[in-house]
């Protein structure tokens, strides 16, 4: 660590011109870290057509925003982001770099670490500064354990799991600096070429912001089970997710997967239906406020993380629940 290193840099993903929730959550964490570390919070946003993003990021806690607005960055492409991002990080020289533990973030962060010749802790749930050094707590062993790691080189890169940090209330009167940076990327140097991209307009974003998420697993017995879950989700303005096992069998779209290698949700209420409660699944929903589970097996692991449990057959309970909610709403 040189004496000049200071502060925290946050790489904020942008979707439809807006910072994603995880970006705001990381700014909240960054503010907390600088209270202890000193220095400033720098937010970096890459994308195309980033109009008001600077003001928004300042309202959420950034002191300085670096905007790389370039048609080349309209879609995420890890290799294309690397030259600019490593240059910016070298110049800003932060002590900690926060990157979302999202699909783009997990593609980007390890590359960046090796390019900067520093280390990265992926899937972090918290960071604490002890004696001036960042201590990263990350999930490991499929979510069964946590490890706390420190690095001997600066900056420490960390990817942060969604819903583990609290975003600040936005303050429009906060002041900060906004700077447009120009890209050094030579597009012809790219060695990976994106040929096509097909995205399902999934309810993914909805899953992450919904107050109620209903997760279905193998205990649903088949794809029909998801129909009932979707019906209930519609009634309560919630979203539907799934275990990997259910996704692997194509009972539901791939994008439903919750867990270690899927999405992270933390709704007010997570209803786990026919899900055994493997740590890999809980890694994506364990931070929910309340978990309610429906399972035929009273000894199912999932009940150990549940506030309420129903021992019963999902094929009977779920249609009945849809009916009861309809009655209550009538």
């Amino acid at each position, binding site marked *: 660590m040189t004496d000049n290193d200071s502060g925290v840099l946050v790489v904020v993903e942008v979707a439809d011109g807006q910072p994603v929730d995880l970006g705001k959550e990381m700014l909240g964490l960054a503010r907390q870290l600088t209270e202890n570390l000193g220095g400033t919070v720098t937010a970096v946003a890459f994308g195309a057509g980033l109009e008001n993003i600077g003001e928004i990021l300042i309202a959420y806690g950034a002191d300085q925003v670096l905007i790389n607005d370039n048609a080349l960055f309209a879609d995420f492409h890890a290799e294309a982001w690397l030259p600019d991002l490593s240059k910016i990080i070298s110049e800003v020289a932060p002590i900690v770099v926060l990157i979302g533990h999202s699909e783009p973030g997990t593609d980007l962060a390890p590359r960046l670490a090796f390019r900067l010749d520093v280390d990265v802790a992926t899937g972090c749930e918290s960071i604490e500064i002890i004696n001036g050094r960042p201590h990263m707590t990350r999930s490991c*062993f499929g979510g069964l354990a946590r490890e706390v790691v420190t690095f001997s080189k600066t900056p420490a890169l960390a990817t942060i799991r969604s819903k583990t940090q609290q975003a600040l209330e936005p303050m429009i009167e906060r002041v900060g600096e906004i700077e447009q940076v120009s890209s050094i990327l030579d597009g012809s140097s790219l060695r990976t070429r994106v040929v096509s991209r097909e995205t399902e307009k999934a309810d993914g974003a909805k899953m992450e912001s919904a107050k109620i998420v209903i997760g279905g697993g193998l205990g649903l017995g088949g794809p029909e089970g998801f129909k009932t879950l979707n019906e209930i989700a519609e009634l309560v303005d919630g979203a539907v997710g799934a275990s990997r096992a259910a996704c692997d069998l194509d009972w539901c779209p791939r994008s439903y997967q919750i867990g270690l290698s899927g999405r992270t949700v933390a709704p*007010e209420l997570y209803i786990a239906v026919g899900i055994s409660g493997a740590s890999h699944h809980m890694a994506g929903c364990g931070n929910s406020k309340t978990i309610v589970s429906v399972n035929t097996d009273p000894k199912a692991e999932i009940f150990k993380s549940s506030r309420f449990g129903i021992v019963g057959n999902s094929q009977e309970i779920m249609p009945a629940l849809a009916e009861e909610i309809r009655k209550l709403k009538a």
Partner: protein
Amino acid sequence: MKIVVCVKQIQNPEIPSAQFRIDEEAKVLIPVSGLSPVLSPFDEQAVEAALRIRDRAGEDTDVEITIVTIASKGVRAPIKAALALGADNAVLLSDSMFDGSGGYVTARNLAEAIRTIGDVDLILTGRQAADGDAGVVGLGIAEILDIPAITFARDVQINDGVVTVQRVLQDGIETVEADLPALVTISNELGKVRHASMRETMRAAKKPVNEWTPEDIGLDEGQAGAAAMRYNRERLYVPVNDIECEFIIGDTPAELAATLAQHMRAAKLI
């Protein structure tokens, strides 16, 4: 064509959580006794991806699949398993100097082993090892070797020196290509892996497994294993879960569902 598949050997990641133990003092996993290590699941799928490439290549293209692993001495079962699936040979970095060193050192050591193998066209790794769940080593190898890397593959095809990968996005699929040599990390969406046939299992016993020391791959003492480590594990623990589950009682599904719906309304969720 030469394909290297990097595989890690780990404790079965799907054991019941009640069996899972760690030593907080030493900050390491306590292996479940009597349980032999397995190929990390994504790595097993990386082997499968390599075999599918060979299957598609047909008779007149020579595809050599080499398994590379860093593992403690004496651990052989998972390599044998990979060879039984159809890989041709294996490189085992099992000197104690390679031990326990984190993503940075692991990537450096694997990259040097791959350089030593020479003329490798395609490197496959898992998206992440299912013990550390890090997802760092594959991309690290590519950066060190300065070759293109494509992550989270569900399908990998090779045509005329170009690798074409379908990668899994949060909300869909992306097709990405790169000229060889390249590195691809494999995700579970690749799908089912084949079973070892009797014939391959018998042949596997005769396939070469080369054991290399750091010296063999041009590394000196300070560059392998713990000596080169740049991270410190300050703590390892199992988080406590103090939730008490209240079981909802009722005689019929309708009764159970009604009680749950009432709870939801009381919590202002309906």
